[in-house]
């Protein structure tokens, strides 16, 4: 019996690595500490009723953002471990197997469990406020999306201490990711972690399209909508076309591994290149899914801090939508070397280059918005300014990569690594940081310390260039990705050491941000105006943080940048249009709100159970998990009491408390 348990746990837990053992102990202690704290302060009920069952888009957004910051920490530690290894490969800090696991989890976590939830967090908090709505179209589905993301991410992350991490690269090409190349459970954690959170992403895509098309305040025609909401629409349209491809691709890989099918195997007539095509038909649109909202954020910030209307609003809309269209026709540029022939490669090279046109349009729009504006430079604007040159260089190296014949040299080299980190950090990460700093007071009701934010900014930026510029050179010197060792006589070590130093500077920058948040919470400076940046769009017309129902009265919109125009009219002493006045002076009415529900949490937890069962091939657990999913779905279907009204008295009290400080 004892031997059985020993055998089981040596297979079940990852053993024999001091780094991971340390992590296991740390995770165990943290869990104990969390349970103890919650019990000691009697916070379990609070946690359940206020957070785990909430359907409020603002709280769901905050949960997304907290998770993504934790994931940024883990992905960042992965990155630094790799940099240490590459700076001194002779030391064998990480062996080949461990290194493979770390570059795999770094990629997956940063794209799917850091960038995506940070993006969804901003969608959730800001879009309904910008549209003048009281929630998203389907609040229950929204909570479901979050918990699917959460449990998917947990399933993926648990592989690090239980069973072993996946190690076949972030897109897991077969035959390496097939049963013959990866017999362990790591790859199964990969499949189910991503599959479960992917279902949540798909639902979010649908939810926000309906929200944006159906729930805008009266008068807000599409061409008067704030640019961030436009970028969310373009991103969500891309999501609903791209994510089903991911679902199928992972499902087919699962069938290969679980039932011995022959989709992507080398024997039995399978075709591994099929997988590579399919995964990039999702994967390429995916990078546009995460970058498009960042473009929207920059557009809001530039207009606010230049105190000017966004230059070229219509061309910006056109650029966003054309990028989401063209994103579906560039996938093969990830494997020009596959040997599809000159005509196929030429087609994909040209479509890739075409994307540079709308992107260039945007850059000029931002520059012209700033031209002759009354500029100020708080942290959100600094990130925006840092983004523009960084993204332009990243974009240009992308155009170099799109030249198919030249790509045979660049392919899988550090030149490529430097390129995509430059667009993903310089574009996506800078963009979401800018958005976090910009909307932070709206989310939490207090401002972040500017001075510490500037330290973080400079460390991030200087660290970024020191880390990634040498990698372009290394790529051209012949260094390829995904190996942990190289010989000293290759001459790569000096630049690798420089790059590692840059990586650690970004690590320090992250610590500054954590310090900034902790400092700002400790010396809390309440933001009482609700409009601390002198903003332009509807989210700045309500108190910070927004009350539960967002708008006590739904506003009527008459122009683009409606809140800004209204402030100008008031300053000039002009009257608002009669329908605007009527909406503002209408008597308060009870507000119809969705009820909290524990079903999204429970249903997603059952998905986790089913996924865990599939990973370990435990049929009983799969049955329990899937049965739980179906039962919770039916429970929802039979629930008719799903909403309630907030009475007028309560609205009056909330408004008086929030506005009292004016």
């Amino acid at each position: 019996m004892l031997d059985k348990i020993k055998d089981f746990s040596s297979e079940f837990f990852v053993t024999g690595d001091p780094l991971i053992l340390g992590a296991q102990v740390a995770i165990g202690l943290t869990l104990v500490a969390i349970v103890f704290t919650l019990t000691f302060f009697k916070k379990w009920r609070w946690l359940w009723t206020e957070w785990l069952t909430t359907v409020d888009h603002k709280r769901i957004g905050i949960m997304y953002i907290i998770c993504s910051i934790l994931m940024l920490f883990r992905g960042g530690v992965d990155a630094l471990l790799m940099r240490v290894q590459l700076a001194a490969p002779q030391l064998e800090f990480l062996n080949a197997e461990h290194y493979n696991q770390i570059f795999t989890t770094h990629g997956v976590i940063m794209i799917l469990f850091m960038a995506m939830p940070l993006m969804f967090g901003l969608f959730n908090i800001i879009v309904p406020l910008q549209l003048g709505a009281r929630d998203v179209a389907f609040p229950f589905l929204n909570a479901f999306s979050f918990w699917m993301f959460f449990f998917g991410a947990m399933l993926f992350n648990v592989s690090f201490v239980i069973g072993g991490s996946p190690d076949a690269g972030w897109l897991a090409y077969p035959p390496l990711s097939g049963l013959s190349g990866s017999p362990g459970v790591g790859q199964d954690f990969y499949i189910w972690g991503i599959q479960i959170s992917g279902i949540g992403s798909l639902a979010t895509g649908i939810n926000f399209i309906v929200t944006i098309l159906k729930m805008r305040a009266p008068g807000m025609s599409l061409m008067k909508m704030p640019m961030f909401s436009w970028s969310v629409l373009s991103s969500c349209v891309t999501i609903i076309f791209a994510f089903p491809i991911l679902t199928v691709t992972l499902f087919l890989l699962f069938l290969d591994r679980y039932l011995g099918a022959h989709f992507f195997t080398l024997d039995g007539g399978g075709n591994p290149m099929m997988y590579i095509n399919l995964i990039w038909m999702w994967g390429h649109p995916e990078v546009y899914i995460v970058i498009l909202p960042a473009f929207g954020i920059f557009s809001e910030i530039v207009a606010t801090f230049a105190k000017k209307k966004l230059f070229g609003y219509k061309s910006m809309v056109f650029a966003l939508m054309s990028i989401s269209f063209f994103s579906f026709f560039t996938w093969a540029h990830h494997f020009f070397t596959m040997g599809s022939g000159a005509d196929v490669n030429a087609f994909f090279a040209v479509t890739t280059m075409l994307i540079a046109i709308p992107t260039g349009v945007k850059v000029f729009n931002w520059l012209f918005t700033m031209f002759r504006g009354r500029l100020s430079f708080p942290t959100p604007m600094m990130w925006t300014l840092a983004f523009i040159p960084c993204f332009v260089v990243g974009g240009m190296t992308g155009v170099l990569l799109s030249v198919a014949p030249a790509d045979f040299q660049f392919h899988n080299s550090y030149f490529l690594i430097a390129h995509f980190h430059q667009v993903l950090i310089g574009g996506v990460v800078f963009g979401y940081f800018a958005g976090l700093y910009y909307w932070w007071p709206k989310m939490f009701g207090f401002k972040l310390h500017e001075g510490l934010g500037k330290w973080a900014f400079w460390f991030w930026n200087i660290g970024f260039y020191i880390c990634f510029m040498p990698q372009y050179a290394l790529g051209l010197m012949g260094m390829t990705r995904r190996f942990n060792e190289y010989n000293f006589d290759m001459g790569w070590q000096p630049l690798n050491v420089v790059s590692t130093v840059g990586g650690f500077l970004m690590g320090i920058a992250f610590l500054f941000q954590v310090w900034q948040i902790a400092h700002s919470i400790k010396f809390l400076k309440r933001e009482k105006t609700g409009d601390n940046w002198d903003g332009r769009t509807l989210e700045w017309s309500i108190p910070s943080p927004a009350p539960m129902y967002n708008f006590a009265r739904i506003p009527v919109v008459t122009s683009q940048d409606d809140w800004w125009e209204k402030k100008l009219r008031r300053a000039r002493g002009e009257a608002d249009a009669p329908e605007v006045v009527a909406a503002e002076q209408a008597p308060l009415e009870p507000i119809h709100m969705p009820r909290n529900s524990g079903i999204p949490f429970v249903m997603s937890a059952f998905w986790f159970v089913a996924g865990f069962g599939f990973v370990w091939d435990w049929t009983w657990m799969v049955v329990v998990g899937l049965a739980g999913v179906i039962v919770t779905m039916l429970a929802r279907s039979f629930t008719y009491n799903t909403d309630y009204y907030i009475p007028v008295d309560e609205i009056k009290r909330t408004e008086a408390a929030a506005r009292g400080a004016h």
Partner: protein
Amino acid sequence: MAQAFADKRKPILEASHGAGGTATAAAAGHGGHGGGHGHAGHDGHDHHDQESMKVFGFWLFLITDVILFGVLFATFVVLRLNTAGGPTGGELIEMPGIIASTFILLTSSFTSGIALLEMNKGNKRGLILWLVITALLGASFIYLEVTEFMHLVHEGATIGTSAYWSAFYTLVGTHGLHVSLGLVWMTALILQLAKRGITPVTKRKVNIISLYWHFLDVVWIFVFTIVYLMGVM
């Protein structure tokens, strides 16, 4: 402005409810915000907005499902000749059973249409009766499919036999799984109808499942054409 926005919503409102004219007027009065964000005393309109948004959301879900099946069809077409020296579909598949199940599924689409007509007439008994008939036809389709799969496995063609059979079972099986989930859902809906009758909420649910059912029928027509007619005959 509110009027202009409300007009865009008109087709959807009409799709879910017969009375397009009054619905649009109500939505215009409300401005563009739905989702239970209306005012007290307008409860009916509130639900109206919310139900129509759910139908729209379901159409978007169907788009994602089209992509899902599209990828499976593409996979099947790419791998259709990769039998790795094993049996081909033409050798093992028996068409009479397939043709029978095709007609059964097509008929079930027709009966679900009749159920909708009964619902619009306000006839709860007729609605439930025709939904039950639809579900029984769906169940017979699934029965025939399971029998076919068992026959094929018996003949030595499993999902692991070759890429062709992997793609075959996955495509046809995913459709079958959709129909099976539809059956569970339809049963749950019949119980709700029996308890609550025809309300705006149950009406929306019947509309949505009928969209789903017709969609699966269309997918089956493609399966029948590409997998069976072009692949077998």
